[in-house]
């Protein structure tokens, strides 16, 4: 039972990883690529680690996998935010069909 549950969670995780990397390849500029890839890949890795927890239960490996979930969550989101702020200050232009640019007023 727990093996089937863990396989379901790992399958969901691999599916979200696939969507994230597909967005990383297909989208037009760096802002779109980062917002697609970070969210999807974070949720995918989250689901894979949760599947590992369901497979091993309350043991050393399972608890370790459960503890890594908030660490991955915080690390990847904070890194993405800092990277995209640095990209904007570096002067990379947005895609020419982007609509909203609110950060331009905040920088000045």
């Amino acid at each position: 039972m727990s093996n089937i549950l863990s396989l379901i969670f790992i399958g969901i995780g691999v599916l979200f990883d696939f969507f994230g990397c597909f967005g990383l390849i297909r989208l037009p500029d760096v802002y779109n690529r980062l917002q697609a890839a970070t969210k999807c890949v974070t949720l995918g890795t989250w689901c894979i680690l949760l599947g590992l927890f369901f497979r091993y239960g309350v043991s050393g490996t399972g608890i370790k996998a459960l503890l890594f979930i908030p660490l991955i969550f915080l690390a990847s989101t904070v890194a993405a935010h800092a990277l995209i702020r640095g990209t904007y200050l570096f002067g990379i232009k947005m895609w020419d069909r982007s609509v909203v640019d609110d950060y331009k007023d905040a920088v000045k």
Partner: protein
Amino acid sequence: MIDIFLYILIGLSFLCLYRVVRGPTIPDRMVGIDIFGILVVGICALLVIKTERTFILDIGISWAILSFIGTLALAKYLSRKKLDE
């Protein structure tokens, strides 16, 4: 079943490396490296199930932390400030 998922994840990491090689600007390459560092944690978690050796999870998590620190350092460099500012 685990083998199929493992092959899919390794293929996806090659897609990230494609973005690293091909990306037109510096932040594009860094986005590829950042996403690759998170994907490696998933690959290591599947390797734990496949080989029943639990220390591989530690390798994945230390890779993720090092990738996090590297991304933060490059973000600081891109915003044209000193590291202690």
